[in-house]
């Protein structure tokens, strides 16, 4: 196998897949390095054709894992702790990281080809102009060196290929795009949405935009992708390729160019930098199984290992000239770690639809985008939050957790419940320089690499949002026509686990100024022009909308720029 390529992409998840596709389609011989195992698509590890009774242990994770202290953080996550897709998540016992004892951080990872693109929630929203302006307006974090208009054509580009379903909602803070037909709201959601839209000028409830093919176009079918079957089993892997993942879409597109080489079980420990040419020249790879070290070289290198992992690789790329890590001349590498946070919401019942039902399990819910931009004076906090949720109607069941036995206990089981509706907040964490990832000073992993040490917590601005979001959630459900409303929020004195939304961002932020940021407006490191970081690490703020579509757009834009620079002989 050659060790010299035009381009190297580190990581094969959402953004790594896009980098591979764009670079290969532009004619670059590209090596994709994945630290996890190889997976085919469809894979024998997919469990999407299993009915509940066919699933091993009926979906319950073996208790032995508990006894061995495995998957403790995934268990804490709750709903993802299921046996049918646990194979797509990392056990921190095998791959540890660290955090202060009183401030745990939830780092959810997927070490397999395709990474977390197999298990993402597929919610796909453009960020709006205000999201890119927020840092400049309120002075928190580093000003984004780009604005919405810079990214808009790239949103078009990635939406067309990925296949995003959504309605043309006409909301200025949540731009529309090139969407497939939207998923239908349920009758209960339609009712709540109409009431909210009637009662508020600034709050809108729309159908969630998601990367599930509600219909197919040639660009999808040419890759063997089929229409979503409304199973909502996406996290088990989709044999139809109906949701966007690296395995179903970008890597097959890259492969058909003949320019792609994929290497799994390849742990990138560092990027090698030549101080004379000021170029990244190689990546050092440790074989997962043999621990053998190899060097691979390329003219351009894309880091797409995820926000924490890409930052971690740069921090670990230490040399005489880069003692604090590569691309860290600003001293800002590893700073401004962010995540969305929840911790407030409400639910209620939706009266009046007891004779109406839904068939199928749509793969998305509803979305209430952030309506609290630019209201610092009035509300007492910067930025804002949105809500995600949905309505459902299910049959009564009995989990054995209440009193009653025999025919009495069975009576009512299987009866239709009334429609319920619930929403949970997605808040924007401010970028704090001292929310950090660092190399652990003493602890290393099984491959001798220092552990990532994460030290992050929310502050009073976020606490104020949580308090306000609970109030707003009740207002929204009340205005929406719900009854029996109950709300909840995390108490002020309880630690909010950063990373809980799996939207970790920052660590190598984009900015204008090399003295205050790590990346420029094209995602090139200020210190090595041929080194790009286009995953969540590059984000200078975290907005309130799910970030993956923005990673895709930034990656495609940066990859095309890299190719142009190569053609011009600048790299």
């Amino acid at each position, binding site marked *: 196998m050659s060790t010299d390529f035009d381009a190297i992409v580190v990581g094969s998840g959402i953004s790594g897949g896009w980098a591979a596709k764009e670079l290969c389609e532009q004619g670059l011989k590209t090596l994709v390095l994945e630290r996890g195992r190889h997976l085919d698509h469809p894979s024998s590890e997919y469990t999407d*054709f299993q*009915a*509940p*009774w066919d699933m*091993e*242990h*009926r*979906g*319950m994770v*073996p*208790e*032995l894992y*508990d*006894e061995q202290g495995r998957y403790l953080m995934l268990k804490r996550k709750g709903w993802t702790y299921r046996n049918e897709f646990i194979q797509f998540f990392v056990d921190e016992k095998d791959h540890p990281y660290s955090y202060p004892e009183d401030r745990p951080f939830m780092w959810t990872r997927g070490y397999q080809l395709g990474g977390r693109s197999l298990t993402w929630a597929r919610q796909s929203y453009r960020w709006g102009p205000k999201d890119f302006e927020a840092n400049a307006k309120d002075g928190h974090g580093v000003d984004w060196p780009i604005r919405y208009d810079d990214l808009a054509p790239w949103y078009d580009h990635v939406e067309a290929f990925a296949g995003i379903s959504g309605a043309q909602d006409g909301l200025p803070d949540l731009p529309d795009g090139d969407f497939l037909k939207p*998923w*239908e*709201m*349920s*009758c209960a*959601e*339609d009712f709540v949405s109409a009431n909210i839209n009637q009662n508020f000028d600034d709050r809108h409830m729309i159908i969630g935009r998601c990367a599930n093919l509600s219909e197919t176009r040639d660009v999808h079918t040419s890759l063997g992708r089929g229409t979503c*079957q*409304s*199973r909502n089993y996406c996290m088990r892997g989709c044999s139809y390729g109906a949701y966007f993942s690296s395995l179903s879409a970008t890597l097959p597109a890259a492969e058909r160019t003949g320019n792609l080489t994929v290497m799994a079980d390849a742990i990138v420990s560092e990027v090698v930098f030549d101080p004379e040419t000021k170029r990244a020249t190689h990546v050092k790879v440790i074989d997962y199984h043999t621990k053998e070290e190899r060097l691979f070289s390329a003219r351009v290198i894309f880091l797409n290992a995820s926000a924490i992992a890409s930052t971690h690789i740069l921090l670990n790329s230490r040399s005489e000239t880069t003692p604090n890590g590569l691309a860290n001349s600003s001293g800002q590498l590893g700073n401004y770690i962010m995540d969305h946070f929840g911790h407030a919401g409400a639910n209620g019942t939706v009266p009046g639809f007891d*004779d*109406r*039902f*839904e*068939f*199928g*399990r*749509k793969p998305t819910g509803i979305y209430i985008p952030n309506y609290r931009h630019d209201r610092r004076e009035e509300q007492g906090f910067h930025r804002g939050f949105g809500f995600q949720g949905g309505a459902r109607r299910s049959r009564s*069941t*009995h*989990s*054995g*957790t*209440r*009193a*009653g*036995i*025999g*025919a009495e*206990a*069975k009576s009512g*089981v*299987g009866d239709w419940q009334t429609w319920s509706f619930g929403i949970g907040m997605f808040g924007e964490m401010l970028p704090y320089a001292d929310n950090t990832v660092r190399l652990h000073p003493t602890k290393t992993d099984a491959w001798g690499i220092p552990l990532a040490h994460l030290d992050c917590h929310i502050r009073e601005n976020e606490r104020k949002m949580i308090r306000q979001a609970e109030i707003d959630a009740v207002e929204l459900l009340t205005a929406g026509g719900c009854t029996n409303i109950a709300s909840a929020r995390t108490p002020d004195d309880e630690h909010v686990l950063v990373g809980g939304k799996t939207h970790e961002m920052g660590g190598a932020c984009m900015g204008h100024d090399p003295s205050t940021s790590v990346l420029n407006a094209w995602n090139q490191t200020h210190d090595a022009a041929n080194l790009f970081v286009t995953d969540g690490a590059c984000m200078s703020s975290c907005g309130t909308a799910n970030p993956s579509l923005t990673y895709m757009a930034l990656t495609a834009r940066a990859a095309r720029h890299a190719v142009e620079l190569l053609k011009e002989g600048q790299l």
Partner: protein
Amino acid sequence: MNAGVLATAGIVLSACGRGEDLPLETTLGTSFEYFPPHQAAILSDVADMLIPQTETVGAADTETILYLDQLMLKWAGERTKLEIEDFIDSLEAEALARYQSNYLNMPEDKRKEFLQEIDAASFSENLDTVPVKSYRRVKWLIFHIHYTSEAANPDFVLIPGQYTGNVSEADYLALVDENRY
């Protein structure tokens, strides 16, 4: 051992004459591999008392305890194994204390009454009075296994193929029929 109880629980002795020395089989002919016959019989009876066959299937129909037996081999940790042991031991001890009888030798109406009392006490506010250990845990397992079985989910559709959010019950049932495998 009470052969009538075993039959009620969907279990038959695999051979005559040596009852407890031999593995039990279900009506499908599959043997228990983890639970000894006496434990399997008690658990099967309890499951059938908790979830009897009515107009819908019961725990015996869904072979709930046979599935639990497999879970014990491949899924359960030491804690769950001990809890089930505790449950059976304390159920037997309580039956002996109250009725001077082994649980399985009690008449059906008495077993039902006994379990109703245990159930009520186990979900009361005063947990100091809980007479049988780990009852709630065993109940949860039985209900979970039963209600995730195929027979207990007659309108489950694995591949709906479409989503529609506003249909009548008749249309819903027609869609289930069309798309059920």
